[in-house]
């Protein structure tokens, strides 16, 4: 079982002092939630779990250990692995300080979708997967569901189910079996000017400027963030529609070409703003304009907007 494999791998790494600690998943407050677990010693390995709800992208946590002479093990799914490339490419965290424990992934369940049909308020005791079915054994009962009906939106368009970078891979590679059609972005593009404006005004209005979307983001890795600065005051701090629109536009441009499309920003937003859709619009445009891949997918491809090719399209000339 994956959970046992994770534990034995981490135990061995810690025993042989190959890593200082590992960032993995621990049990959360209910069956549909996991929490990041920081395991520093063999005694703590028991905390580690694997869950069909293991949604968090754990790579960003290494940023709490910049400039330390340290080796950190991180458990990553396919999409999260793009963040590792991001952090290495941005020279935020060196590759040699990572020990990447890759988990090939066939999709993670969206707890909000599952909770509509099943009671997730108990603890997750165990789970089994048979083909397309998952049986969740929780302290409140056993539930059987078809995975395909309850995946995270991003999993329906996953391009990298197997991590693109890893030091050890726990399980068989999963061949990419989906493509991204950007239907969510196209749906908004097809609206009229007024409808677009109304849609985004309604979203931006809700923003409380908590910056959770920034904090969780592996592309938001600047030492000093413009949104924190008061001197100069690049962006107004007031939470009103204009300032919020400015905030969202600026953030979208700051991560353009570097956003790895992990979807974490939308997930953590307490106000339910589809933050990631702005970034996905940028990715879609960049793919069309510059024939590039999703950032972080191909380690050879540098940041899109930091690259110059003489045959780049020049719409503004």
């Amino acid at each position, binding site marked *: 079982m994956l959970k046992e494999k994770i534990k034995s791998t981490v135990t061995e790494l810690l025993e042989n002092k190959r890593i200082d600690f590992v960032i993995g998943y621990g049990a959360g407050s209910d069956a549909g939630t996991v929490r990041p677990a920081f395991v520093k010693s063999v005694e703590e390995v028991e905390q580690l779990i694997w869950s069909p709800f293991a949604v968090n992208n754990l790579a960003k946590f290494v940023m709490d250990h910049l400039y330390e002479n340290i080796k950190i093990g991180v458990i990553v799914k396919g999409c999260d692995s793009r963040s590792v490339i991001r952090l290495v490419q941005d020279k935020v965290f060196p590759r040699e300080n990572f020990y990447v424990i890759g988990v090939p992934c066939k999709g993670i369940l969206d707890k909000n979708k599952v909770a509509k049909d099943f009671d997730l308020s108990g603890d997750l005791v165990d789970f089994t997967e048979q083909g397309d079915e998952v049986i969740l054994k929780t302290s409140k009962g056993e539930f059987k569901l078809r995975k395909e009906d309850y995946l995270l939106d991003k999993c329906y368009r996953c391009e990298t189910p197997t991590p693109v970078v890893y030091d050890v891979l726990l399980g068989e590679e999963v061949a990419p079996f989906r493509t991204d059609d950007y239907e969510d972005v196209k749906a908004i593009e097809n609206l009229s000017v007024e409808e677009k404006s109304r849609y985004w005004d309604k979203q931006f209005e809700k923003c409380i400027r908590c910056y959770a979307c920034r904090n969780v983001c592996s592309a938001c890795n600047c030492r000093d963030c413009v949104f924190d600065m008061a001197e100069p005051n690049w962006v107004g701090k007031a939470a009103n*529609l*204009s300032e919020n629109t400015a905030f969202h536009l600026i953030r979208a441009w700051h991560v353009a070409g570097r956003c790895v499309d992990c979807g974490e920003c939308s997930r953590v937003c307490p106000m339910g703003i589809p933050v990631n859709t702005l970034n996905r619009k940028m990715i879609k445009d960049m793919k069309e304009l510059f024939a590039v891949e999703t950032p972080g997918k191909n380690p050879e491809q540098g940041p899109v907007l930091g690259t110059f090719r003489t045959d780049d399209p020049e719409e503004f000339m």
Partner: protein
Amino acid sequence: MKRLFEFIGFEPGRFHARWISGSEAQKVVETARKVTEEVRALGPNKKMRDDRC
């Protein structure tokens, strides 16, 4: 930039970007004229107006 502006509901033509060298006087004039005309046709901007000064 222009594409993202339009994605969130600015009118096409509200925002222009042009690469003009210091020696291209004619292009500056033409661009300024075009921008003025297009923006005048659109009327006053309504987005991002509250509290920004």
